[in-house]
């Protein structure tokens, strides 16, 4: 491959900067985008009111950092930093730094010194592993101006919804209502949040939610709009990730009690928090808040079934919550493809300049942008990876795994793509590539496969060809 998409876009951005050097507005906008190119990936967490945005942010970060209760639409950015630190940006006046402390796994922030309606953005530096790869943006509930801001500031989108509603589909469609976005619909993952509430409180609700998400992945109305659909219970996932020992002990005590008695107690949230029990009311209340009734029922069942330590229970809860799947999707579809998504955002930004300030010399840039969009193999790779992960595109078992590997689903460097776990010789690499190329060429014309699968095979062939150069 002579030039990767991010290199191509980088070159175009600098050319645009040269062309627009006399326009201060365009220059600052372009500089902003060039600056963004090197910053961590920005993932916006968006959804309708009550779709569980903050819960998912907490579950992904692993600490209780959201929500920060303020009035008005405020974007909260969570980025990596050595110490907890917060910067509040105001509509008017200079930004300020409110006091912020870490209490156990919770974040405590004091915003009393700020006018509550005037804040536009809070940037929180928080030491967390996941934030090193990507900045999370907790957004206000979806509204027109909010979605524009999301489109302008975020590279990737986690769209949360408890139920797929017409409004959700409309919103996702609106995010693709742009030529650049349409050409590369690779930046969103739909999350069926609040998965624990699906089954009317039964403990198998999480697996039911997974089935529903699988159905949506193949739904014709959804699959073009996002890379994957993942069912997640943020509440249970976060509870699993952050479970303290005493919480485990309380749950274990519940599980150890006679089954009928516990069942009676767990019948309703009211009974659980208000009736007489050996556990103090405050503990029970906290349990109900942190796990939800479904979570408590699930946890007690799991303990009875043999999750006899905190770590076992926690990992079981995290596993079942779908959080691992979500993190995997974020990792493979967003973080690993950081450059591609950054390039996509930069193209969107550049497009704004080209449209707002058209000038004669810009014609070449327009064609360059179009060329990158049409030719960028990375977009196709990423789209196919999303398809393979979500089951939207289905290849026979082994082929599917190999395709994922070749298009960079397990790492985008040459060795990872070719599946070498040791240092291969030059000849071995060559042989492996030629071998893959030949086999996938065959697949791309295999009459037993459907047209979508043959298209997928063609993408793999191109990936192989790109490795040769």
């Amino acid at each position, binding site marked *: 491959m002579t030039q990767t998409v991010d290199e191509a876009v980088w070159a175009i951005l600098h050319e645009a900067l040269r062309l627009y050097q006399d326009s201060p507005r365009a220059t600052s906008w372009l500089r902003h985008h060039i600056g963004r190119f090197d910053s961590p990936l920005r993932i916006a967490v968006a959804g309708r*009111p009550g779709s569980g945005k903050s819960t998912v942010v907490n579950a992904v970060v692993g600490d209780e950092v959201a929500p920060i209760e303020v009035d008005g639409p405020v974007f909260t950015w969570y980025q990596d930093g050595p110490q907890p630190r917060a910067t509040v940006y105001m509509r008017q006046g200079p930004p300020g730094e409110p006091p912020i402390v870490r209490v156990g796994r919770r974040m405590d922030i004091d915003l009393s010194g700020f006018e509550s309606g005037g804040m536009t953005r809070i940037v929180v530096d928080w030491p967390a592993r996941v934030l090193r790869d990507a900045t999370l943006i907790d957004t206000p509930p979806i509204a027109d101006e909010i979605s524009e801001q999301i489109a302008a500031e975020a590279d990737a989108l986690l769209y949360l919804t408890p139920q*797929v509603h017409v*409004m959700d589909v409309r919103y996702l469609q609106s995010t693709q209502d742009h030529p650049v976005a349409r050409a590369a619909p690779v930046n969103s993952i739909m999350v069926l949040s609040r998965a624990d*509430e699906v*089954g009317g409180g039964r403990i198998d609700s999480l697996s039911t939610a997974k089935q529903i998400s699988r159905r949506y992945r193949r739904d014709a109305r959804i699959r073009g709009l996002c890379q994957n659909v993942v069912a997640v219970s943020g509440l249970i996932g976060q509870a699993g990730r952050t479970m303290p020992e005493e919480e485990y002990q309380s749950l274990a005590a519940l599980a150890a009690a006679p089954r009928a008695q516990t069942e009676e107690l767990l*019948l*309703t949230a*009211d009974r659980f928090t208000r009736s007489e029990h050996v556990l103090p009311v405050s503990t029970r*209340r906290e349990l109900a808040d942190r796990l939800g009734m479904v979570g408590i029922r699930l946890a007690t069942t799991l303990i009875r079934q043999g999750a006899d330590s905190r770590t076992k229970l926690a990992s079981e809860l995290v596993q079942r919550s779908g959080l691992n799947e979500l993190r995997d999707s974020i990792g493979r579809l967003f973080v690993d493809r950081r450059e591609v998504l950054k390039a996509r955002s930069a193209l969107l930004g550049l497009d704004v300049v080209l449209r707002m300030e058209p000038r004669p010399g810009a014609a070449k840039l327009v064609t360059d942008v179009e060329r990158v969009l049409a030719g960028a193999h990375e977009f196709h790779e990423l789209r196919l990876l999303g398809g393979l992960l979500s089951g939207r595109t289905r290849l026979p078992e082994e082929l599917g795994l190999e395709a994922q590997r070749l298009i960079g689903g397990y790492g985008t460097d040459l060795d990872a793509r070719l599946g070498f776990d040791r240092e291969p010789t030059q000849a071995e690499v060559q042989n492996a590539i030629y071998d893959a190329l030949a086999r996938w060429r065959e697949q791309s014309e295999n009459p037993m496969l459907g047209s979508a699968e043959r298209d997928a095979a063609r993408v793999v062939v191109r990936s192989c060809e790109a490795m040769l150069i």
Partner: protein
Amino acid sequence: MTAATWLEVLDQTIGASVVHHRPDLAERLRAKRAQLLDPQIRVLVIGEANQGKSQLVNALVSASVCAVGDDVTTVAPTIVRYAEKPAATQLLHDGTGAEPQRMPLPVDQATNRGGDAVTTEVRIPRKILAAGLVIIDTPAIGNLHQLRAQSTFSALSGADAVLLATDASHELSATELELLRHVRRSCPTILVALTKIDLTTRWRQIADRNREHLSKAGIPAAVVPVSSALRLRAVAKDDEALNVESGFPELIERLRTDVLPVASNPSSRQNFAAMTGTALAELVGQVKKELAARPDDRNSPAVAEYMDAQQKMADLKRRSAKWQNVLNDEMADLIADLEYDLRDRTRRILREVDRAFDEADPAKTWDQFEEWLNENLTEAARTNFDWLIERSWWVADRVAECFPERQDLVPGTVIPSDADLDPGDTERPRLEKFTAGQKVFSGLRGSYGGVLMFGLITSLAGLPLINPISIGAGLALGGKSIGEEGETRLKRRQQLAKSTAQRHVDDFFLRFSKDCKDAARRIQRGLRDHFAELAEQLQQRVADAASAAQRSAQAELSARQRRDQELRQALTQLRELHGQITRIAGALPASSRNPLEISA
């Protein structure tokens, strides 16, 4: 207020809806009418996906009558009503006909969603239903299957009360509030059931927030927190305390106090009044719009046609003057040109004749000459006549061009193709020849003078009168006189021949030019007749079209006036109906809550 009055008003409104081409309104009102005359009270259970609607219905009647599932489950409405004995029927498409078939099925399989059910109807013996309550479970609103939601909206108009199911885990969403606002227009009795309160500790706050949202949105609806799971468990265990905890007794009480009285007329009629009022207002709006949107007179097609016809008429008149001028001018030109041409040709022939007879002796060449002359004249006549024909066709074309649609059909009889070209026989001139006797006589006459003259001269010299000299002189003179005589006669013959030829040519010219002129005039007359007829036909046609257009324009105008009149009458009638409705609504106690607004 008697029942007959409101029924009458309703019937009239339905009639008006039909008249004003609003079958949708009529349908809605008819459904309302049937509903008002029906003692049953229909409660529609609505809500977004997975808010526990079906479970709510199951819990209400404490039986599993609706399918419950985790994904999108309810795809067709289930109607639950009272019966002594349990029974269930399913209305479904069996795949053969367009009409759905009614299929009875066992009650315990009512939740079985096999096939393509349109509706499922379940009848069970329950106290709560005995009062005439009919509970309808509907497919979710706002999920991706829009078609299914459509049926819910259409069912709304038939509902006496609406029960919105909303999950206790979240506050009422914007879409739910919007839905309630929509519902309120056709059905003011609304209850909000906060379901699944067993799953969250926060349901009390949520319930309070929901009440706030509702009052802010101006929707008078009570929020009843319930737990279907508890209720079903309570029923299964026959646990009264659990039943109370489930919140269902309160919900049933609410249904009894808020919904059942709907059937005992007044407040239901208020609902009806609101609905009829809305329908009437819509009709009034429509009629007004129709009145306002009367098309401009000039835009009417009939009027446009009439104007067009008149335009054509004027156009035709202008053209008819023009074509006549063209015909006259062209024909006059043609005649003049023809005459000149003929004259020119005959002159050339005459000059030729002159030249020929300057040399030749007509006595010898006359026959030959005559042939030549006739040939030439015939040739000239033909050329001249051909030209006439050609020019005549051209003129006909020019005239035809004056007509709006080109009329190429000049009949062939108008312009002759043949003419009498025979120049006739020449009158043969009397050509005196110089006979031998005349020659002798002339010779003698000339020689006599010579003999005498020279005889006298020589007699002086003593010679006799007749001597060789005088005889010689006489011979010479005689010869000369013969020669001179011959010359003179030739000249005379030539002159004669010339004049004869000239006369002949003149005759020919006179006759033929007369013929030509006649032919031209005949052509002119023929063309004039033809085109005059054509023009008349055209005029007639245009005039017919104009009068037809005028008639239709007038008919349209009167139709429009009639329609205006009708619309105004309809408007008055509708307003009257509306007044009656307002009076009926005014007679109801709770009318102030539902003010009717109409701008007349």
